[in-house]
């Protein structure tokens, strides 16, 4: 089917699968924020949606300004810009737009929003799962009994940096009735050593298993 100058149904189908230029540009600029290559970011299929989400949340002008700094000198980000850059990173990692710090909402003249998942697909496309060779609950379950296998080693060149700000995730331990604290305590003060390294069955196992907590 040759489209010529008259757009046909076929043509418009082709147009929808083509990556948008600004989505591509957004993914390129997000590489430094996420540590993932633009190729990986585009492969999530989320670039356009994330760009639209960020624009809606902070406004096109602020977003462009932040991305320009990210492009030029990401280390110089500060204040609200840094908060927006963090939000973008969070978005790529979790598929959720976070609640920003209250000051950022004030400066952006926006009402404090609540965190939300931008689409059901965004949750499954979160980069976070790849950082620990995990999979999102409710999607892409690995095969039966694969949970018995030793996870493949993490491919991170460096240990993940602990995040200072308390995340918005609800921890089970927030709820006093759930489990008595004793369930969690007195596990790794044993002569057998910490649970995070090694198992009795596999002596080769005691190499680095980074567990970001």
């Amino acid at each position: 089917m040759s489209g010529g100058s008259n757009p046909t149904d076929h043509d418009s189908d082709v147009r929808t699968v083509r990556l948008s230029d600004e989505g591509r540009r957004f993914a390129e600029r997000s590489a430094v924020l996420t540590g993932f290559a633009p190729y990986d970011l585009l492969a999530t299929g989320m670039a356009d949606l994330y760009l639209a989400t960020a624009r809606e949340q902070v406004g096109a002008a602020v977003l462009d300004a932040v991305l320009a700094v990210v492009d030029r000198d990401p280390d110089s980000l500060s204040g609200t810009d840094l908060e927006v850059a963090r939000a973008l990173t969070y978005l790529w990692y979790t598929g959720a737009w976070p609640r920003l710090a209250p000051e950022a909402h004030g400066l952006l003249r926006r009402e404090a929003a609540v965190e939300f998942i931008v689409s059901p697909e965004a949750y499954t496309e979160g980069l976070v799962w790849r950082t620990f060779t995990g999979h999102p609950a409710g999607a892409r379950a690995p095969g039966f009994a694969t949970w018995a296998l030793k996870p493949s080693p993490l491919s991170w060149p460096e240990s993940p940096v602990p995040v200072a700000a308390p995340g918005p995730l609800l921890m089970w331990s927030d709820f006093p009735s759930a489990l008595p604290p004793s369930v969690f305590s007195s596990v790794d003060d044993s002569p057998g050593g910490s649970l995070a390294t090694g198992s009795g069955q596999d002596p080769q196992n005691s190499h680095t298993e980074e567990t970001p907590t």
Partner: protein
Amino acid sequence: MTTRTAHGTVANRRRYDVIVVGAGIAGSLIAKQFGRQGWQVLILEAGAGGRETWEGHLDAVATFRSAVAKVPNSAFRYNAAAVSPDVLDLAPDGLGFTANGYFVQNGGLPYGTDYLRAVGGSGMHWLGICLRIHPDDFAVKTRYGYGRDWPIGYHDLEPYYTAAEREIGVAGDAQEQRELGIPSDPHYVYPMHKIPPSYLDEVCRRLDGRVVHDPVAVEDFALQVVSVPQGRNSTPNPRYARGLGYLPEGAVGLPNYGERCVGNASCVPLYRSVPRRPSGRRCVPRRSSLTPSRSPRAAWSPG
């Protein structure tokens, strides 16, 4: 036995031998029992259904994925007509918590998880742990001078445990349970082989034999790491029911290999009590076998 879902006006036009209120595990099994006897049974359920269709299943999956915090009720849409208590109703406030939901919770220890008012009840999002109570626990007064004895003993319940394990298609290791002092017929096996322990389970196995001090009992105990029988899909045990085997309701794929989703807690195999038929006739609200419905974090804590 046929099952139909209907709204009030339609249901109202007929007469029934029995009316069961609530389509949770308990109500469903009671209705199944009556239905098997040829009775006309009406089950009244306050909450919504719909997940037994493909569209309903997809909607539940999307609802789960869209939830910011994945908790047991995340796959179920809010239903103003039958509100479900939700762990997210609780907000820790430094000293304790505030509760702002269906349950009024003013006590010191809030109920810290969900209940589900929907077809299937809380069995739609439970963890699937299917423990028989230890015989000692029926007689704590006699054995330990504490609390009260039950008016019945383990052996009164044993046949019912066996029946429940068939209905739920429990995966477990009966020998391991017997060694723990939970008796069953020496030939008894669970309907399914036990769920293979995870890598982390094996890591935790190093706690086996560790002596810990129990400050309440003021005694030392040696820990024993064992698996727990689970109402989750595993591999059917061909030795079940003295060699008859076990066939889950709605099973697809190769016998003894497939016939399962992948062992998630959201995937309870239901016993097919009639000979295999092509049409998926059923008499209990069947859960959609792939619906993700709970997060591992919000674990149910027994006791």
